[in-house]
């Protein structure tokens, strides 16, 4: 009897959860990518694109449905995302869920409008929307971007973005932007969002630093994600190419890119380029002098280099004189690039994406004092100086470049 009572009590625990919020796995449609576009005519409407994953693709349960596509893409027009999420059930059989929504794509046109911030700020009201959601700006319509994004090796769309995010963190051509960071930077600081496109615009300014779509490419996946969209006050105001984005990330005190390849002009033979892996061994040292007018910003960045290519075949490793020249030249080139980039932010964007405002906040005791200081305004005219402390850590696994040993006078046949 006692056992019976016990069994009854334990089994009745399963009823405790109730049926209101039950979620049958079979009946869920997981949106993995969402796109937002401006409506052409109605400026208060938004075009919402849902990319819904097909969980059967890429799993062992594939079985009979071998011909189903990896995802389904639906676009509809609504006044906001919440309404679209419900109205989509006129088309989609299963219950739409944002629980696995990790990527948000916003078209550049929408990002440049006032409507953008209103949409994003009201999107976050939905408790299913996560603050860690990736934030990407597409050059074309988000709808077209999602349709065009058919990666060949990653059939499942969420895997594509997940792996891409890992690469961004390693390489730094793209900021690892998410909604949380967007909401942190609404006070006049610049927010950098990943910039992507499937529209190719090949062979522009080779070897200078590319923006998505400019990287010359043949074959491979249709989408390029490189560079960043610059936001100020929740509105897109411009772009930074891959190299500039990386520089911006490098200049942050807590930079997450520690390991990046960069090419430099060869100091002994200007026709050629020399490539190095930059390892940011220590955090940059950022000194602010806010008492002066204009304010002074002094940045020292210690970097260690690992030479990875030497096209001019000059001996930089054993010849110490060459090594010093190389070091100095690389230092100058890095400083020049960085200063150009800083100038661009001061003149064009009138604010900074380097999170130096956080350094400035340390100089104030209260929020009121900091707000009264008006950092962005002061930054515009700030005197910025950047020093790189270059150290060459190694030259790869060759002691000297392998030179061709041609006999003097004539060719061998």
């Amino acid at each position, binding site marked *: 009897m006692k056992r019976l009572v016990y069994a009854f009590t334990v089994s009745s625990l399963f009823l405790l959860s109730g049926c209101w919020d039950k979620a049958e796995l079979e009946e869920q449609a997981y949106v993995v990518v969402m796109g937002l576009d401006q409506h052409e005519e109605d400026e208060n409407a938004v075009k919402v694109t849902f990319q819904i994953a097909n969980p059967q693709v890429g799993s062992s349960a594939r079985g009979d449905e071998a011909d189903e596509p990896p995802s389904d893409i639906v676009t509809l027009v609504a006044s906001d995302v919440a309404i679209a999420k419900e109205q989509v059930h006129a088309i989609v059989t299963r219950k739409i869920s944002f629980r696995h929504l990790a990527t948000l794509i916003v078209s550049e046109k929408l990002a440049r409008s006032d409507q953008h911030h209103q949409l994003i700020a009201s999107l976050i009201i939905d408790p299913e929307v996560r603050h860690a959601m990736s934030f990407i700006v597409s050059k074309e319509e988000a709808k077209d971007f999602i349709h065009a994004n058919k990666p060949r090796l990653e059939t499942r769309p969420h895997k594509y973005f997940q792996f891409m995010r890992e690469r961004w963190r390693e390489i730094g051509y793209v900021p690892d932007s998410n909604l*949380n960071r967007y909401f*942190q930077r609404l006070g006049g600081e610049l927010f950098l969002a990943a910039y992507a496109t499937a529209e190719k615009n090949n062979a522009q300014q080779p070897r200078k630093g590319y923006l998505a779509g400019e990287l010359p490419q043949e074959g491979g996946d249709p989408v390029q994600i490189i560079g960043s969209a610059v936001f100020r006050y929740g509105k897109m105001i411009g772009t930074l190419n891959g190299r500039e984005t990386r520089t911006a990330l490098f200049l942050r005190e807590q930079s997450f890119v520690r390991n990046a390849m960069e090419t430099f002009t060869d100091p002994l033979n200007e026709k050629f380029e020399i490539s190095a892996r930059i390892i940011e061994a220590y955090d940059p040292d950022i000194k602010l002098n806010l008492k002066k007018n204009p304010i002074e910003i002094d940045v020292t960045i210690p970097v260690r280099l690992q030479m990875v290519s030497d096209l001019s075949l000059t001996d930089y490793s054993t010849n110490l004189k060459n090594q010093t020249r190389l070091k100095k030249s690389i230092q100058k080139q890095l400083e020049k690039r960085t200063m150009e980039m800083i100038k661009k932010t001061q003149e064009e964007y009138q604010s900074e994406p380097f999170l130096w405002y956080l350094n400035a906040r340390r100089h104030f005791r*209260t*929020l009121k004092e900091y707000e009264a200081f008006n950092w962005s305004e002061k930054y515009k005219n700030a005197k910025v100086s950047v020093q790189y402390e270059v150290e060459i850590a190694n030259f790869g696994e060759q002691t000297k470049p392998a030179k061709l040993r041609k006999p003097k006078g004539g060719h061998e046949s």
Partner: protein
Amino acid sequence: MIKLNDGKIGAKEFFAMIIFMIGIKFKDGTPELLYEAGKNAAWMMPLFSLVFLLVPFLMLLSLLKKHQTGFLELIFKLTGNHVGSILILLLFVLFFGSVTVNYRSHAEIISTLFFTKTPVAILVFVIVAASLYIAYLGLETIGRISWLILPTFFALMIVLIAFTWRQINWGFFFPIEGPGLAAVLRESVKHSAIISEVILLSALYPFLQKERDFRSSFSIGIVFSCIQLAVFLVLLVLVFDFPGVANINFPYQQLTRFVTIGPIISHAEGLFLGFWSIVTAIHFAIYLILLVFLFARLLRLKENARLLIPLAGIIFFLSLFPENVFQLTEYRKAYIAFKSWFAFCLVILLWVLDKWKGWKRQ
């Protein structure tokens, strides 16, 4: 024969109860109140409140030691039957109100973030029922469960900090004084009720195995709780930044959503939700049993376990009154401001009365 159950609790159980009464308040609507008042320096508030309450706490401990009796008996002894009854009634009403509001706000957290379709009434009912069950098993059980859960609780909190570490930016810590030191101090005093609620736990003084245990557990527990609150208030600011953190309704729950263990386990918040429910049930069981204590003492009832069910029933119905969580926040603010001063003054009053009686006798 050694008696296994004597209805009393030891030092470590009492310590765990203090943690679950005060130290876990970062998990409910409290951070919202504190961030609004203290901005990005909200983390200082529990610490300043502790400093503010230091004198009353020391007075309380010395009074308890001198009279060797619980807090409620102490009130009667020092203020007399009539005034004592009024004071206890007031305490009861205040606590009853805030417990009711807290039940509802916990249900709102679940309703808003996790179970959006389940009626709030059902959620309140489940929380009330769970805490009622634990409270029904008695003080000793509550103490034991608290102590049993505590290591897991700490382990999970360390996991939470470790796995959200990547989201942290120490720059958000500054400007260090937030709205200004004076403002933070002022708000700390106003919000000291968040911590001074612990005074009521001294009603349990006669139920501790050793009276020395009470003092050590009480002091360590309250200091530990305040530090824990401060740590989490800092963590939340470092992840979301101010004013973002003040805009988020339930920042702790949002924080648990950042926990990803490798690329595969990306939704670990369920683990935290499950554990949070257990902790919540214990939290409220402690409050329930304290309420029953107050009520039973007020009416001089011997049997108090039977009071639990009607009391929980009233709480359940009353908690359904407010329309939404933002109305609750207004109630909570009013309660907290009043309770802060009430608790402070009550202890001072008792101490002064005690001294006065001493002089009169001489």
